[in-house]
């Protein structure tokens, strides 16, 4: 995989953007889970 990335440098940038996106997406999903828990508690 690394040799493929080394030849096409553009994919390195893509990997970087992907990592940033995954980190931020993970944070937003965590927030949604917390919100769901509160809303469930409200109903109980």
């Amino acid at each position, binding site marked *: 995989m*690394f040799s493929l*990335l*080394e030849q096409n*440098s*553009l994919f*390195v*940038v*893509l*990997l*970087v*953007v992907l*990592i*940033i996106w995954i*980190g*931020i997406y993970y*944070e*937003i999903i965590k*927030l949604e889970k*917390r*919100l769901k828990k*509160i809303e469930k*508690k*409200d109903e109980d």
Partner: protein
Amino acid sequence: MKLKYFIGILFVLVILLSFIPKISGNLTDVKFYSTIDTTKIIPVKGVISEISNNLYKFIDKDGNEGRLYASNITNKEGIFYLKYNEYENYFTLKKFENNTFFITFPFIPGLEEKARIILFHVPVAWVSVLAFLISMFYGIRYLKSENFEFDVKSVNSASLGFLFCILATVTGSIWARFNWGSFWNWDPRETSIFILLLIYAAYFALRSAIEVEEKKAKLSAVYSIIAFVTVPFFIFILPRITSGLHPGSADDVASPGGGPVIKSGMSFEMRIVFFLSLIAFTLLFFWIFILRNRVTELERKKI
């Protein structure tokens, strides 16, 4: 227009603008790098007009002129991948690409295509510093007023700042693997960001070690202030005065003591895209920050 849609559109724009433009240096770059590395082929955007058989006059995007020796040229305008022949004072064509987009990014030595990383890796790091600053700001406000809302905001900002710091470190490490050979080199800037991660990890350790809410809030506010005082030293001062691999260190050939962002390494167009990216990430941070505050406040009220 609602904020979240604006952020979405801005991000799509930033990603398009960072991947579509092609890299182009100018003829001065080609001449300069032919003296340093004879195997380097540098893309230059320009126009050609024929002088004689296989000999062309080449005008690049900045207006420099040169003689181009090439066969099999089909188009008169585009991105020409050139090498410089010093003895005969002409350029030779190695590859040709059709370019229809009006912006090009400058040729930054050592990076070429990977230069686009600047548009993502640096804004993430700067937003992380901003987040730590906001954490200190709310820490100060808590110490003055003893209102728990400020403590909530201080922690949330610090958590987000920590996340962005981890992202900056991981992306930087990936960049290091493809630029300098290995994932971690203990370069001064890498060491600084590692220490910063430790400092804020200690912040969370401190918070989890105290049970009483008031004390937790007060002590972590004090620590967030102390921690942020060291941040400018680590991010802005130390990596610029010590020699290392990262751009902007003391022995960087192209931009010593500053880096492409602070000094002139980026062209006007690239600077605009960089600015857009910075705004996009800052707005994203504030959006997640506000959401987190609302969720934490709800949790506190329910309990």
